[in-house]
């Protein structure tokens, strides 16, 4: 399912304001997975990049999954 970007925006703004990097990684990661499922790989890789960077900052293990997807698509 492609997420509504408006609802994503609202959640991202709230997480950004709270300085909640883990939540940002999660939100972007979910959006990326949804766009990947719909076949929109360019948009997915934008969001995987966002998710990767926030997960990397947090030292979260998901960073490696996002990195692997970006590498598979020659984006990292």
């Amino acid at each position: 399912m492609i997420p509504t970007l408006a609802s994503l925006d609202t959640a991202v703004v709230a997480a950004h304001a709270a300085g909640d990097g883990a939540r940002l990684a999660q939100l972007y990661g979910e959006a990326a997975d949804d766009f990947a499922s719909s076949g929109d790989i360019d948009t997915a890789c934008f969001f995987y990049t966002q998710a990767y960077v926030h997960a990397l900052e947090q030292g979260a293990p998901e960073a490696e999954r996002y990195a692997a997807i970006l590498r598979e698509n020659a984006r990292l």
Partner: protein
Amino acid sequence: MDQYLAIEDLERVLQPVETANGLSNRHYLDPEWFEIEKRKVFFDNWTAIGFAKDVPENGDARPVEFLGQPLVVIRGRDGLLRVFQNICRHRGMILVKEPGRIRGAIRCPYHSWCYDLDGALKATPHVGGPGHNTHEAIDRDALGLIEVRSHVWRDIVFVNISGNARPFEEVHAKALARWREFEQPLFHTGADSGFRLEVATNWKLAVENYCESYHLPWVHPGLNSYSRLEDHYHIEEPDCFSGQGTLVYRQLKGDDGETFEDAPGLSDKWDTAAEYIALYPNVLLGVHRDHSFAIVLEPVGPHDTAEHVEIYYHAESDAGPERAALRAKNAALWKVVFEEDIFVVEGMQRGRSALHFDGGRFSPAMDGPTHMFHRWIATQFSR
């Protein structure tokens, strides 16, 4: 003309102590001189910027702004302390704003370029366009954080910002040898063992005052009862450090007669000796059988200095709660002594506005360590 006069000033300082004058007023007042001093005295030498205790755990990062240089001290996952310029290699944005623990990577708050704790550039998001995180023109291996040479000695973090000084161990070999017996673990206990003094003086006057014992009976009368002037000796090591020692150090005692533990294995000399040296340019150090201290002088401007004082103990048992009262007493004693010096260094600073002051003259018998510091400064300016 100014340049000519400056050389003449320095030549007077470089004379033997019997005939030398001190550094001229401009070394204490002139913003232009202060800028030259930054480069020649601080950036070209091993300068203290803080304490390793402030980044105790792996991943700890502490930004330090020293003489306008944005630096960040980081303890890596390997436990090593490193110092970097605190800026992103992309647009020069400040990376770390506050002390804290880096859990994963350092993310630039501007475009989110990410760096590992060892400085390696880990991620350059969207650098090749949206969702494209590489670009052939951006070589990540060549764009890590810019590391500043650093060295930790006695828990003090030294940096050589210009990168052109000889290795720390070589420059300060004589200091390391002199106090080799004290190359032992140091224990710091947090806020009860440190304080900061803001002093309206040029940093050099704090060094000069610290170097000599001449002022002790006049400024620290509390020391007279047991530590007389004749119980002190000069410490003079050209180009490295100078200071004073005492032959009659007495341990502090608590209400029940308790004392701090000695550093293990010290030679008999240290039963009653204590030494105080200014390690050029900006560290004032003291060692005693049962504790040590370090003062990092932060030159805030030509007229202002922050003195960062930290006291260390030589035995882990002295870092526990049962010694808290004695530690507080010790810290309070030292604070009194250092505060007693403030009117002197601030008074000399105000005196530097006197138009006809010639840098002053030195007592050949008593001011050798101070003149040695002046000589070192003059030598740095003459390079």
